[in-house]
């Protein structure tokens, strides 16, 4: 999505401290015009602080923020060009849907007829035409969310900020609304930043994802890159599910040894690492291939099924590979039955070497 043109939003070395806690520690990133970027991370990672610094609600202590070529670092929120949807929506409870949406449409630029037609346009855009006279408390959570979105978009801001916009909704409405937000964003072409702690949400709708931890950026990349090629153990562990253990690089190219029992696994990522390097290994459940004992390929190893969990479309098996090592494997329930993968069963497992995630461990 990022093109050769100058980025729409530039964040340069932005830091913010609350007392002695560094909420943001030298964060830099760029967002292209029309791009949808998500800030993803555990609670307290600084994602909301970064969003509020971009909005000017909690100004940064140091660093620079440029929007459309203009330095906005020191500007008050009202002097910037953005719309925002808060986690709580912050709809004005004593004003109707129409009054909420029209709230920012004031001054000589917005005479009454123009205002009314803009509100009509917006309620239609978010599909709330029959609810314009209602108060927020009379709407469902999803409808309130749409009112907040329409209010944020009313002034045609250059930048749309979404602060955990879906976290107050139940699972089905969430899924539906996140697709709706993405469609709307693409239709309007508005540059959008969304803060979320829900990785599925971030991966599902974003052009790029910014993973954050402890006030720093852990990785920026397209959703697939983040998932398939995590830059560090934090991202590998935070995004998606994985089994993890410590191993050492063997003499042979791309071979890892773990534990005292001489258990070995091949990993492309370990090629070129010096022998004896201590590494952290991550294996995702969907990458583990199971076969009957003796039917596996050269790299297969024996496992025992410890536990199995029925999750609907897949079964998640907990596997013991040696005395202290556990893996997880996802496979369709029918395939699990066919293999006889019940607790106690002995099977063979195999992981494609290109799918094993390996990171040099410190010390």
């Amino acid at each position, binding site marked *: 999505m990022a093109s050769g043109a100058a980025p729409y939003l530039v964040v340069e070395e932005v830091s913010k401290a609350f007392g002695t806690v560094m909420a943001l520690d030298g964060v830099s990133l760029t967002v292209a015009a029309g791009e949808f970027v998500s800030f993803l991370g555990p609670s307290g990672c600084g994602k909301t602080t970064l969003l509020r610094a971009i909005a000017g*609600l909690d100004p940064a202590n140091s660093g620079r923020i440029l929007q*459309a*070529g203009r330095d906005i670092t020191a500007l008050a929120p*009202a002097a910037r*060009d953005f*719309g925002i949807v*808060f986690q709580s929506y912050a709809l004005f409870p*004593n004003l109707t849907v129409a009054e909420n949406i029209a709230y920012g449409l004031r001054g000589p*630029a917005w005479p009454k007829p123009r205002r009314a037609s803009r509100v009509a346009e917006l309620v239609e855009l978010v599909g709330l035409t029959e609810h314009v006279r209602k108060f927020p408390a009379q709407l469902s959570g999803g409808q309130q969310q749409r009112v907040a979105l329409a209010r944020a978009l009313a002034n045609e801001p250059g930048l749309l900020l979404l602060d955990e916009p879906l976290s107050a909704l139940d699972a089905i409405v969430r899924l539906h609304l996140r697709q709706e937000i993405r469609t709307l964003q693409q239709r309007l072409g508005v540059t959008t930043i969304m803060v979320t702690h829900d990785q599925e949400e971030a991966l599902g709708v974003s052009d790029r994802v910014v993973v954050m931890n402890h006030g720093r950026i852990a990785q920026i990349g397209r959703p697939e890159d983040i998932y398939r090629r995590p830059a560090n153990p934090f991202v590998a562990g935070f995004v998606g599910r994985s089994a993890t253990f410590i191993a050492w690089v063997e003499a042979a190219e791309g071979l890892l040894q773990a534990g005292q029992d001489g258990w070995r696994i091949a990993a492309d990522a370990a090629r070129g690492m010096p022998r004896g390097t201590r590494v952290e290994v991550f294996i995702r459940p969907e990458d583990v291939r199971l076969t009957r004992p003796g039917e596996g390929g050269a790299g297969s190893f024996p496992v025992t099924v410890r536990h199995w969990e029925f999750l609907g479309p897949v079964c998640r098996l907990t596997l013991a590979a040696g005395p202290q090592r556990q893996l997880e494997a996802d496979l369709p329930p029918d395939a699990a039955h066919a293999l006889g993968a019940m607790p106690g069963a002995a099977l063979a497992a195999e992981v494609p070497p290109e799918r094993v995630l390996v990171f040099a461990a410190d010390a």
Partner: protein
Amino acid sequence: MPETRPDGTVALPAAAQQRVAGDALLLRGGLWITASVLAIGLVLPLATLFVRAFEDRDGGFAGLENFGRYVTTPTLLAAAGNSLWIAAATTAIVVPVAFFYAYALTRSCMPMQALFRTVMLIPVLAPSLLPALALVYLFGNQGMLKGLLLGHSVYGPIGIVMAQCFYCFPHAAIIMAVALATTDARFYEAAEALRAGRGRIFATVTLPGARYGLVSAAVVVFTLVVTDFGIPKVIGGQFPVLATDVYKQVVGLQDFNMGAVVGLVLLLPAIGAYLLDRWAQGKRAATLSGRAVPYAPRPRRQRDLPLLVFCLGVASVLAGLLGVAAWGSVIRFWPYNLSLTLDNYDFARFDAAGWDSLLVSVRMAGLAAILGTVLIFCTAWLLERGTRPGRLGSILRFAATLPLAVPGLVLGLAFILFFNHPANPLGVLYGTLAILVLNSVVHFYTVAHLTAVTAIRQLDPEFEAASASLKVPAWLTCWRVTVPMCLPAILDIAVYLFVNTMTTVSAVIFLYGPDTKPASVAVVHMDEAGQASAAAAMAVAILGVTLSAKLLQLGTARLVERATQRWRRR
């Protein structure tokens, strides 16, 4: 929308930038106004009082001489001791009664709870002089129930304690009702599931849950008694207490320095109580989680019936005392000629100001209610939401809670010392309505401030951020959203200020001028002059005004709700 420059950058219109800066200036200016009001009406007077306690009559530095004179004068020390034990006795009586009354209101299925709740609040509307006058009717030298005191005189500790119980009861009962109402039903379910008996549940769940409420109630009652002036003035006879001592030193002996010393002594229990109460409040807040399930009592005759009898008893004493005062005010000549008359309401016969003093009171209370509500609510909003208040904000936050610790009599004394100082250009205010209004607003600032803060904190914290993102100035959002949503609380604040300013004696007794004598002071003067019936009549007239104000509030509540609270309906 901002326009794009030829070089691709975008400029915000200069007017918009100026507007943003102007808003911030406006908001900060608001805080400075409050800061100066609290400086002139609280900090500087108290500082003057403090300094004067260390000066001799001619303004020279006297060191601890005044304090030395204080501790070596037996009558002054005796007054301090009297104040303490009177307060302790009243607390010991009022708090348990208030606890069970509130328990009946919140934890039982006793009938007529709404009625009992209303009766409980009535004493708040009356000046503290009213129960004292009623007790004089009943137990005084010509009292019809005098025999019940077995030869003891009502003029003294007995009368003071009885009147204080009436006066303090609603304050304690309100606190207890709140403490008992905010409980978590799950504790009771857990206790029942573990097969605890009723007595054990009461001892292990109910009492511990209410213990900080009990501390708060005890502290409030104790402080009210120590600092109240009206009751010991009317029914105390020759029995000296701290509050009447301040008055005697200042008005009787014109010894301002000793007055200042006694004032500081009076400040001690009040500040101690204030600190204790803050501690209890903090503890209480910590015991409540946001997800508490409200407790709903189930009917049980063995509990409900005794509580009903108890509440009927308490309520009839409260209503009875008021009734006696009202009745006494229309009696021709107590107790010899019980025929009815309105002569006692012809106040011009007893006091030169006549009905005018009631008018002064209404004007004073009205102005205090209007100006005070605007000032207090705006300040609370500025501190909570308006801007980043910084150090000035923290100072104001603290200053706003301070008046609760300053007894009215001390504040009034501090006012005279400060405004009467020859070098003070604000001295022209002395004796005017303005100084009475300022004094009243400051005197009752804290409770009003806390009410406003509580109401504002219930609103979504992102309202101002949302309006900033929509380029709407914060003050406009305050006007369009915050004020309409908080209107019930704003009316509560206004009525609270009005009622308290109408009924207060202690602060204003030092500050009125020849044309600005409030009705409550007129009550004291008529009582001093031996015109008890006229004094009762004036006290009843005050009650009439405050009761009307309260009824007006209740009457308009529905109207207000229809106009501004429509959004609450689903």
